[in-house]
């Protein structure tokens, strides 16, 4: 009996020694597995946002042009994924907001003479990719949704074109594509950002009025932008929690 016991202990230690080198490999194996996963795109690792510096926008409309080229947005006016608004706050009277063809060809003369203007500036607009999107709530078929990396997308094959989401969006960021008969909107150029490129409008902006990146990472252009600017979002009272952040935004902007 005693003898058997010692034999068991020895074999136990032997087995332990045999297993030990294999056990030390386990953490390396798991790292290998992780590295393999990173080769593809993993949406769980990303959370995108955009920053817009109103002081830097020159209203050239290059972002609108780039967006239409990149995303095959119909060339006719009134179909935009992003557009620029010109705000003119005169000394007397109501604020004037205009956006001729979304600003794609720049801005001509204003409705009021220059000496009647108190303040005037450009505001680029885009889908806010809300963290609590009202458009997603109302979709009856689940054709619009928030992806795992925080981008609000439209499933073209599944959209029935009922336009509830166009009505629900408080920012007017959606339109019905007359050719596909489905709803279309900004995707943050999802096909570009998942390949590590910038959205077309950010790429095109000549004054770096638009910045784009990860908000969860502390050392990205968008994180720097949020740290060193006073940030506002559009219509904060609606509690949509937009992920497009504006710096130097005037209180008149709606």
């Amino acid at each position, binding site marked *: 009996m005693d003898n058997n016991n010692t034999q068991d202990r020895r074999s136990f230690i032997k087995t332990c020694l045999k297993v030990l080198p294999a056990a030390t490999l386990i953490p390396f194996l798991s790292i290998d597995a992780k590295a393999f996963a990173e080769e593809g*795109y993993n*949406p769980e690792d990303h959370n995108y946002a955009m920053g817009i510096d109103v*002081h*830097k*926008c*020159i*209203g*050239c*409309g*290059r972002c609108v042009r*780039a967006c239409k*080229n*990149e995303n095959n947005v119909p060339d006719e006016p009134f179909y935009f994924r992003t557009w620029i608004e*010109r*705000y*003119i706050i005169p000394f007397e009277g109501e604020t004037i907001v205009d956006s001729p063809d979304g600003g794609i*060809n*720049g*801005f001509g003369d*204003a409705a009021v003479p*220059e*000496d009647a*203007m108190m303040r*005037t*500036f*450009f505001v680029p607009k885009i889908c806010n990719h809300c963290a609590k999107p009202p458009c997603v709530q109302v979709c009856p078929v*689940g*054709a*619009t*949704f*928030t*992806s*795992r990396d925080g981008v609000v*997308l439209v*499933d*073209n*094959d*599944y959209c029935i074109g009922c336009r509830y989401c166009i009505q629900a969006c408080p920012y007017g960021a959606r339109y019905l594509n007359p050719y596909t008969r489905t709803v279309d909107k900004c*995707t943050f150029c*999802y*096909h*570009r950002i*998942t*390949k590590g*490129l*910038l959205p*077309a409008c950010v*790429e*095109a902006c*000549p*004054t*770096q009025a638009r910045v784009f990146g990860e908000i969860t990472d502390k050392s990205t252009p968008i994180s720097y932008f949020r740290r060193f600017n006073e940030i506002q979002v559009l219509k904060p009272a609606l509690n949509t929690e937009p992920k497009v952040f504006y710096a130097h935004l005037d209180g008149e902007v709606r």
Partner: protein
Amino acid sequence: MSKLKEKYLAIPEQIRIVTVLFAIFLIMFIFGRRLFIPKTFGEYGHYRAAAVDDIMQIGLVYAGHQACAECHDDVVAEKSQHMHKHVACENCHGPGYAHTQAPDEHPLTIPTDRSYCVLCHSYNPARPTGFPQIDPVTHNPDGACIDCHQPHAPQPPEVPEECGSCHERIVRTLGAGHHNSLPCTQCHDIKQEHKITPRDFLPTVPRTREFCGTCHSTKASSAKEIRRVDIVTHGENYFCGQCHFPHNPEVKI
């Protein structure tokens, strides 16, 4: 067997019919659900997970600024040293993903037209202060922009030499207003030492109404086109600079 049949017949007929109908309905429901709901629906949420992959597969149109440097490194290096360093190549030359795949079949365009530069550089009051702007009607109307300006290495306006190398923003703002033709020394007394230790030898800033009055007073002997005011009564006891911005006066003639 007969026992089971007996039990079955013991159930009232109406319940038997309802049960069969319910079973048929349930089978149809399960079958219909499988037929109509896409395979990947609900994988991550109330949507078709495959749609994300579909959107990711969309082809590129703009190649991105990194792609240009692979071949045109000389132009990119030159551009990165000058004012247009943040303007992407594809901004002026058009979308270039096709060009990166087959350069000869898809040549890019070079905008030589005057109308292209003014998209950014024509004067517009809504543009931010300090952004270089010109009035296309009066600014060398017959020439193409690229005759004088090299778009890969544009030069800032040269009007007040030296000052602009540090006070670039003021110089660019001046360009939009009527004080553009004045040298900085017209209003500021600048010591030579200011260029070596700027903060120890600050230039003077005019602080009296009489100083502005040397040109703008009704009694001044300056050019006739210059806007005049009665320096004694105009603006009560405020200094001119409290209402007017001398680097870009808002009062136009």
